[in-house]
């Protein structure tokens, strides 16, 4: 009984979301008096309605009104109003009938994969990013009925257009309802591909391209979990499709859905920002060629796009002082995301585990282990898609595919190719459209080679793919907990949920299934504060992090109003750090006066760490050292000094420093061009000092996975750290700082 109710709740959450989006979209399309083919109207209505519903949920979250009953009333009102307006009665004519052969091919292949995909989407959500952040943030919004200010999780600062729809579904059907919403985008994408080809009079191309995309292993998996890549692909394809219709009809009303989808693209995923310049350039170019006004359509589209983009920028600006967080931190420096994180992240995403870019074609099509997933061997034929250049539609498809696939250069993970796949599929099918038998063979080949049991025969072991589905788990005959047990992210979440009090914070270095716990989790790399905690915790274990380098500036006594330690070298791939900065007069250290003003460039927000007398905290540049970076003490009145000591660590030995001072005459002068350096070995274990710092910052729990940095040390010397192990499950161990 409980299982049946759970499944019903999931299906309700999913269908309620789809119905609300569809109703909203239909109402707008009807209001604009836009006419499409019957199928097209339903598909566009869902995608445009999804954008509108997402914006509504955003507003409700911003107003802290994200309550389940309100969602229900609002959704039912929208659906009821749409029904009263006759939105359920189809408008527009049908497409010309599909040739019998293609109809059967489509039904058989689409039916088989749909059964597989539906079960996967209905299963308890266990995808790494789905349960960690796509639904992790959704679960937080659901608990707090809005946007809580989150400054310790980079993922919470990304635009979350589809996550807003996940939230609508999550309220009723939890995690699986959200995954099914993504699956709805997947289905819509496939029918959009199909419909586009029918509109251009090539139904066989439509079936082939739809199957090429639908069967692709990475698309199939991504589109049936709580990710967003297939969702954004549906939005981009719908935008392309509408632009093509506008190019034919020049109906100015079409600019409204075009503007909405261009903006919604950014709202769903930063990397899809390219949709905005694409739509604007397309309209400008076509209008100019047709000698039609350019400014007005461009203004309409830009304004509508901005209406969907700006809210996300504003949210990030308010919450983390950077409208493009977690990127652009050099332009918008802030205390929440380190530049070093952004640099490292970008660098890793450009290479993953590849040793050469020549590995990419084979990796993304056949092996998939180094780039996390595969699109299928058929796409080795992608160069043939260039033959579609001989058709106007082919040129449009290839241009859009190139643009929407461009972000792949910044992230070589296979799923970042997904936005280009429908365009490649259509171009390839179009290129070979003269050889129908060949298209049929390729469809059969794609369907067979991408079936999960066949994929495992050629992909690399451990490749991210849909390995198997479990109808029992999908129908909750096998309890959710049973099914998820053994999934590391889920196990971590359960330990935290069962052993950590409600308001406590947990620091961990691995990503747990945040969507399955209500506790506050700080993942090491996911925010500046978390990275600071991680740095504190690692300092006792790594000699190079410890303040063993003593850099002394000695000079004739002089009266100064400010003193600056200035970094003079340019050192890529390193950081500058200062554990303590001490000033002396007559051989005595000057006690730190509350009237001193301390600052630093960059990262002024952490400057106090260089003045707290703690050997485990340090001010760090959190970016490569550049000439002109400094730490400064401002004295309330002229202060006589004769030496300055900088305590630093081995890992910043490449940084070079000098000492500048501001005298009473208001002029900065260099007091000493270089310090003398000595080494002071550390004779104390810093472990307990480190945990004391965590405690002082409100962090009492530490969740450590066996193979992560320091796991053995925490386990072997928990007493030296001043903590005790309070729970363990598999390879995860939870410590409490006493």
């Amino acid at each position, binding site marked *: 009984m409980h299982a049946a109710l759970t499944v019903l709740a999931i299906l309700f959450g999913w269908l309620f979301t789809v119905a609300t989006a569809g109703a909203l979209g239909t109402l707008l399309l009807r209001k604009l008096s836009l006419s499409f083919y019957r199928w097209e109207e339903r598909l566009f209505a869902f995608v445009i309605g999804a954008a509108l519903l997402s914006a509504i949920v955003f507003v409700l979250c911003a107003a802290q009104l994200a309550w389940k009953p309100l969602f229900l009333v609002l959704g039912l009102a929208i659906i009821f109003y749409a029904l009263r307006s006759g939105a359920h009665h189809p408008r527009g004519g049908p497409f010309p009938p599909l040739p019998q052969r293609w109809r059967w091919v489509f039904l058989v292949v689409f039916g088989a994969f749909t059964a597989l995909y539906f079960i996967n989407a209905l299963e308890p959500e266990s995808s790494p990013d789905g349960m960690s952040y796509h639904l992790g943030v959704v679960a937080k919004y659901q608990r707090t009925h809005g946007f809580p200010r989150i400054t310790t999780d980079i993922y919470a600062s990304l635009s979350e257009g589809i996550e807003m729809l996940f939230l609508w579904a999550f309220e009723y059907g939890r995690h699986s309802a959200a995954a099914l919403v993504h699956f709805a985008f997947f289905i819509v994408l496939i029918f959009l591909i199909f419909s586009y080809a029918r509109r251009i009079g090539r139904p066989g191309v439509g079936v082939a391209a739809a199957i090429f995309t639908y069967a692709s292993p990475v698309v199939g998996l991504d589109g049936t979990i709580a990710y967003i890549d297939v969702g954004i692909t549906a939005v981009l394809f719908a935008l392309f499709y509408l632009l093509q219709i506008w190019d034919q009809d020049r109906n*100015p009303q079409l600019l409204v859905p075009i503007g909405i989808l261009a903006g919604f693209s950014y709202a769903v995923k930063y990397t899809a920002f390219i949709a905005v310049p694409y739509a604007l350039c397309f309209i400008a170019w076509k209008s100019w060629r047709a000698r039609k006004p350019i400014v*007005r359509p461009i*203004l*309409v589209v830009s*304004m*509508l796009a*901005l*209406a969907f983009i*700006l*809210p996300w920028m*504003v949210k990030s*600006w*308010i919450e983390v*002082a950077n409208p493009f967080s977690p990127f652009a931190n050099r332009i918008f420096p*802030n*205390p929440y995301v380190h530049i070093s994180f952004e640099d490292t992240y970008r660098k890793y995403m450009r290479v993953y585990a590849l040793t050469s870019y020549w590995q990419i074609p084979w990796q993304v099509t056949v092996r998939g282990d180094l780039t996390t997933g595969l699109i299928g061997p058929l796409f080795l034929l992608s160069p043939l898609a260039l033959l579609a250049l001989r058709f106007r539609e082919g040129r449009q498809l290839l241009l859009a595919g190139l643009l929407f696939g461009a972000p792949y250069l910044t992230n070589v993970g296979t799923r970042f190719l997904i936005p280009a796949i429908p365009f490649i599929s259509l171009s390839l099918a179009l290129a070979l459209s003269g050889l129908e038998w060949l298209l049929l063979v390729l469809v059969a080949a794609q369907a067979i080679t991408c079936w999960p049991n066949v994929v495992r025969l050629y992909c690399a072991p451990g490749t991210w793919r849909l390995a198997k589905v479990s109808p029992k788990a999908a129908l909750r005959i096998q309890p959710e907990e049973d099914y998820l047990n053994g999934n590391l992210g889920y196990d971590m979440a359960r330990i935290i949920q069962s052993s950590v009090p409600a308001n406590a914070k947990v620091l961990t270095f691995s990503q747990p299934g945040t969507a399955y716990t209500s506790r506050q989790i700080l993942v090491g790399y996911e925010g500046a504060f978390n990275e600071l905690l991680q740095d504190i915790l690692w300092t006792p274990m790594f*000699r190079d992090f*410890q303040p063993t380098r003593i850099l002394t500036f000695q000079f004739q006594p002089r009266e100064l109003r400010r003193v600056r330690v200035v970094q003079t070298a340019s050192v890529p791939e390193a950081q500058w750090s200062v554990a303590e900065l001490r000033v002396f007069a007559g051989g005595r250290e000057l006690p*730190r*006066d*509350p*009237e*001193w*003003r*301390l*600052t630093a460039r960059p990262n*002024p*927000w952490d*400057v*106090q760490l260089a*003045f*707290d*007398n*703690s050997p485990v905290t340090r001010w760090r540049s959190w970016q490569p050292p550049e000439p002109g970076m400094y730490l400064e003490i*401002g004295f309330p009145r002229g202060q006589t000094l004769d030496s300055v000591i900088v305590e630093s660590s081995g890992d910043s030995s490449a940084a070079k420093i000098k000492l500048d001072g501001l005298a009473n005459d208001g002029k900065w002068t260099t007091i000493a061009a270089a310090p003398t350096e000595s080494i002071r*070995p*550390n*004779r*104390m*274990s*810093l*472990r*307990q*000092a480190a945990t*004391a710092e965590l405690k002082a910052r409100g962090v009492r729990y530490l969740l450590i996975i066996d193979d992560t940095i320091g796991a*053995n040390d925490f*386990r*072997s*010397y*928990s*007493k*030296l750290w*001043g903590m005790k192990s309070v729970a363990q499950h598999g390879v995860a161990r939870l410590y409490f700082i006493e």
Partner: protein
Amino acid sequence: MTWTVIIVVLTRISFAILSLLLCSCDRLPETYPPPQQRPAQALTPDPYAMMVEMNDPDAAQHIVKDIYEPFGSPWRWTSKQPTVKMLVDASDNIKLSSDFAIWDDGFKQTGPLELSFLVNGHLLDKVKYATPGYKHFEKAVPPAWLSADTESTISIDVDKLYVAPQDGVKFGIILTRVGFLR
């Protein structure tokens, strides 16, 4: 006309959003006073934090060699040179400490035992035990032998081993705990 209205409305909305944006801007401070000072060496770790108890579930993490599984007892048999690794919380004022026993029946076979206590390969002491039973060893370790950053090894070398007549397995001493104390 319709488009003009749309553009005007959208422009107004944009201005409203931008105004809100500007209102929300709050400059973060860039200068700070010195923070609360952390007192040096104010922390007091558990006095037994540097000891390996043989019944500790994580004892295996510290054992390097020649210590048998506990078989459910709070102590463990050793072989020729039981060795553990341990971190010190500071290198000054550290003593090596060990509690162990020499088995009566084994003693009958081996006679008096001479145990060498080593820290990081340095011989700290050599002690002859002329009687069986419970023993305690404790002696200060020179600071220069230790480092607070890296694990130190403690070895107890047993000069003669008891050989079990039934299966020929060799045993040294019965170890309860070993490690460092402040």
